[in-house]
């Protein structure tokens, strides 16, 4: 009787240890994975809120500089840098869209900085009927309307 009890005792210890290891490994692994993914999610939410805050704060001030071709003075009036990535012109006479009518983009405007005589190729103030979109890297579009010899901004 004594010999058998001794043998059973040893095996039980080993089985217990194995079960313990399995349980600990499974639990800690699940916790580690969920924590890691949650951390990534929080980072993405932070990225989103920062991006949307900066996007809604973007502001450009336009001034008319010359008429043929249309030239503008563009001032960054917000507190963060603005990168103009595209200029799109909707020619309403031919009802067609022209992307990037100038060669000098992208341009970066730091806070308070002005880009003088920014030329919009193919737009003559006197004769054109067009909608111009100044598009930034944060997905904002600043609209300028050229109509009846006038240039209209939404400053």
């Amino acid at each position, binding site marked *: 009787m004594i010999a058998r009890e001794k043998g059973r005792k040893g095996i039980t210890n080993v089985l217990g240890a194995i079960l313990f290891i399995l349980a600990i490994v499974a639990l800690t692994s699940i916790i*580690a*994975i969920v924590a890691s*993914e949650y951390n*990534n999610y929080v980072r993405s939410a932070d990225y*989103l809120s920062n991006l949307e805050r900066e996007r809604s704060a973007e502001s450009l001030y336009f001034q008319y500089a010359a008429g043929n071709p249309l030239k503008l003075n563009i001032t960054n009036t917000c507190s963060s840098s603005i990168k103009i990535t*595209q200029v799109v012109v909707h020619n309403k006479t031919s009802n067609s869209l022209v992307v990037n009518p100038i060669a000098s983009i992208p341009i970066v405007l730091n806070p308070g900085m002005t880009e003088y005589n920014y030329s919009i190729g193919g737009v003559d103030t006197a004769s054109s009927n067009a909608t111009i979109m100044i598009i930034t890297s944060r997905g904002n*579009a600043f609209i300028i309307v050229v109509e009846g010899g006038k240039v209209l901004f939404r400053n």
Partner: protein
Amino acid sequence: MLLPKKQKGVSEVVATLALLAITLVAMAIYLQGFNLYYSGETGLLSGIFRSGSEQNYERLSILYAFQNSSGLYLLVSNYGARNATIEKVVIDTNVVSYSPQIVQAGEVSLIKIDVSLASASVHVVSLITGRKNFVSAEFRV
């Protein structure tokens, strides 16, 4: 010549250290395998948060809409950190036929939709992406 009983096997300290080492190694192997298996976006545990964070990194905006004789054109900007696949287009309350198109991160794309809308009236367009984000805009053609 037999050793005394207390000298048989390993000491409790060594056994505990061995158990700890085995646990850590097993955990590392298990974690590595788990991460590899669930590296996509549809994994049970990781997918819960991963699909949400991928949605946050995907940002689209509709900048402009105009219509001519060949159809409706939408100027779409992807200002997020992920390429976006536009899978469905809904105009007013109708899902219009549209073949999925990718808008690269940081790019502006012109999307053509084969519809003819009544002019001088206000319409609502919604774009639905592969990550189940949607962006809407109101416009008049």
